[in-house]
């Protein structure tokens, strides 16, 4: 019975956490730039406003389906990630499945933006995909390293193994190289500042979001909120020993997010090829050496 | 009659000398006519060799005109028969060669082998 309850309420809880985190991120960056920044619940207001817009411009049936794929895909990944107290679906799909499910929303958005027939959108998508090539290889290699070390690809078992070791069991501690490489890759995955090439407002008019307005933009912001939490949770489960109760989980989320935001706040944006070159020059060799350590 | 040098030795040396001379001409001379002459020389050399095979010292020609001579002191007649055909063949070939060279001369206007190189590679 409680699984059905979990299935209904989990997205809402994660949505609320996510939105608060986005609000917190705006406030945090504002503080660094010595201004007050909007209230924490500002993101709720934005989403509420966007959802009630009268005119929602759409460029074709694929544009609409893309938005559905976007949100639906993210919800799908949500269920497969073991969250404190609920890991019913984790047994049906392991880490490999999660890594691929993450790509469905990206593909959905790409198709929708392509449909809007706006070159800014297309440039944004091509940059997003190139960035994907950049960060995904090191991230996947760190996951392969962890999976080989513990001889399992299921995330739930990885958490249990790390929990058993206590603080020193954390992935970040047992093999720091993989942990740091994954952290840099995570920076790219979330699209934070040094690697924020796809939503570059100054260069390509917010890239994929140029033709998104009204409820389309609203749904995209909902999706962004959930996606941030999902990606952070993946890193936490792999390298920060997962979380047994919600309090520890939220603490870890906010601490990790602050680390990423602080990097985001102080760095300018890479050019796309420099971003990819950076990703292949720094985190990838680190991950390779980490895996070599595991093998020998 | 067998002086210091036996007849068959002389014949052998003569035939190989002739053959080598003939082949030497073919290898070096540029003029087609000279090459045909070289061929002729080589042919005669071979014929000499062929005849010398049948020669037995001190025997005479194998003709039964007077019954006094018996088989034992006669030269072996078989190679002589062979030489006959070989000479005829040699003659035929050189006649053909010269005819062809004349027609070639009509067409190319030169006898120099280095110039007649229409067909190569």
């Amino acid at each position, binding site marked *: 019975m409680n699984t059905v309850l979990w299935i209904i309420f989990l997205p809402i809880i994660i949505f609320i956490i996510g939105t608060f985190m986005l609000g917190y991120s705006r406030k945090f960056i504002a503080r660094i730039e010595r201004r007050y920044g909007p209230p924490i619940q500002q993101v709720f207001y934005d989403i509420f406003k966007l959802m009630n817009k009268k005119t929602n411009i759409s460029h074709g049936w694929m544009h609409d389906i893309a938005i559905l794929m976007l949100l639906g895909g993210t919800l799908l990944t949500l269920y497969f990630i073991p969250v404190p107290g609920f890991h019913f679906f984790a047994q049906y799909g392991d880490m490999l499945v999660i890594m691929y499910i993450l790509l469905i929303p990206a593909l959905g958005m790409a198709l929708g933006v392509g449909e809007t027939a706006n070159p800014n959108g297309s440039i944004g998508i091509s940059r997003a995909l190139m960035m994907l090539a950049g960060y995904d290889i090191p991230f996947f290699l760190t996951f392969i390293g962890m999976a080989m070390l513990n001889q399992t690809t299921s995330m739930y078992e990885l958490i249990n193994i790390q929990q058993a070791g206590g603080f020193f069991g954390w992935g970040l501690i047992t093999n720091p190289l993989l942990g740091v490489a994954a952290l840099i890759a995570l920076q790219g995955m979330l699209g934070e500042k040094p690697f924020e090439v796809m939503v570059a407002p100054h260069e390509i008019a917010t890239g994929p979001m140029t033709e998104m307005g009204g409820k389309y933009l609203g749904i995209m912001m909902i999706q962004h909120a959930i996606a941030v939490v999902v990606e952070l949770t993946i890193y936490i489960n792999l390298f920060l020993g997962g979380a047994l109760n919600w309090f520890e989980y939220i603490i870890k989320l906010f601490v990790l997010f602050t680390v990423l935001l602080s990097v985001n706040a102080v760095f300018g944006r890479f050019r796309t090829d420099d971003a990819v070159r950076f990703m292949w020059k720094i985190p990838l060799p680190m991950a390779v050496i980490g895996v070599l350590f595991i093998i020998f | 009659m067998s002086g210091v040098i036996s007849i068959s030795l002389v014949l052998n040396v003569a035939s190989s000398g002739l*053959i080598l001379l*003939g*082949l030497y001409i*073919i290898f070096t001379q540029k003029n*087609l006519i000279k*090459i*045909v002459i070289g*061929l002729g020389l*080589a*042919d005669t050399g*071979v014929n000499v*060799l*062929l005849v010398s*095979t*049948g020669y037995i010292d001190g025997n005479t020609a194998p003709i039964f005109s007077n019954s006094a001579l018996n088989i034992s002191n006669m030269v072996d007649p*078989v*190679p002589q028969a*062979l030489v006959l*055909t*070989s000479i005829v*063949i040699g003659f*035929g*070939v050189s006649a*053909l*060669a010269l005819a*062809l*060279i004349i*027609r*070639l001369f009509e*067409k*190319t206007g030169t006898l120099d082998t280095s110039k*007649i190189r*229409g*067909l190569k590679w």
Partner: protein
Amino acid sequence: MVNPILLIIIPLGTAFLISTVAGSLKNSTKYLAFLALLANVWISISLLPQVLKHPVNVIIAGIKPPLGINLLVGPMGAIFSIIISVAGILVLLYSFKYIEGEGQSKYYTLFLLLITGSQGMILTGDIFNLFVFFEILAISSYILVGYAGDRNGFEAAVKYLILGSVGSVFILVAVALIYQETGTLNMADLAGKFASVASGKKMMIMLFFITGMGVEAAIFPLNSWLPDAHSSAPSSISAVLSGFVIEVALIVIIKFVYSIFAMTEILQYLSLVGVITLLVGEFAAFNQGNIKRVLAYSSIGQIGLILFAMTLNSEAGLSAGMMQVVNHTASKSILFLVAGYMIKMTGSYQFTDYKGIAKKMPVSSFLFVLGVLSLIGVPPFLGFFSKLNIIIAALAVGNTFNTVMVFLILLGTIIESVYFLKILQIFYIGDPIKGGVKEAPFTAVFPIAIFAVVILLGFLVLPEINIYAGSAAAELFTKIQITQVF
């Protein structure tokens, strides 16, 4: 039982008959030649079953060997005389329309002389007689090469003549030395006596003979005349030359090496020379423009392959070589005969000018394709089975030398299939060429079609071919039969 001597007398007689009646019969001399060859074909085929039991020995003019000349017809001789007469009659049929003009009776006389020479070389049991038939064959092919009457024809004929005569000088020296040592000219008698000859002398004799006959058999360093002669001769003649004349010379070498000289050490050297000949032939043909020169070089390649197969010192190798000879005669004749009409129609020797000719000459291009496929050795054709048997025979010995040779042969096949494919692509792809190009006449296409039938349906008759080729190989390999001739 028909006396095999007829195989030589009929063509010789008709040749002289034609030259005498040439004045009155004018253009119908060719039918006389056709009848002669028809008789030849019938005799050689009727000879085959009889020969399988034991070789036929024919004494000429009543004088028993070793003094008299005799014909010794073993299975190898019989098969070869069939090849010569069948290929001869088909090419003759082809040249009915191909050779026009008033001088054609000379052509047919020479053609018959050529057939006589090759039949004679195969059947004779006496080495000097072999030399005489060799000269008949050589002289008639010199003239026939120059028959076209153009600058290239005469140049090729002169070159062929001079090199051929140098070769015949070497052969005659060998014959003389043989007579000097063993005192006999009869092959069977010689086989017995040759072992007793001093090894130094034996080597000299073999050396002279192989170099001399090698010139006519187109082995690598000695075959410089072949590309010029085969490419500037009229196509029917190049078909005959590539078809069986060079194979006849090769078979004589093989017969001498196996049964008379019995020097098996030289076999490995000869197979090496064979592979070198193959590679030289294939590489030289690779970027040739003139279609007949390509086919000439490919003949050199195929001769190399046959030489390699036959000098494997095993019965399987010999029989595979025999099959390859049949395949090469048939497919190479197709290629030359088709090329003949293509040149006649388009007026150019360069195959790059035959773009899209398949649309104008569909039947002959299709036959050309069959010829190419069989030459390369594509499965349903005869060429595949002979090549497969050659490689089986080569690898059966299993030493590294043969494995390396097999790889080189296959490299040659790859190059051969590439340059033939380029030609086929030019034929079939591209817009058809302008000008009055139309299909070759029926009398030309008919013989080519029969050759095609030989290679296409060869595999139906495979078991029989195996028996005959096997018995021919046995005859050469086991030298006993040849000695009990008296």
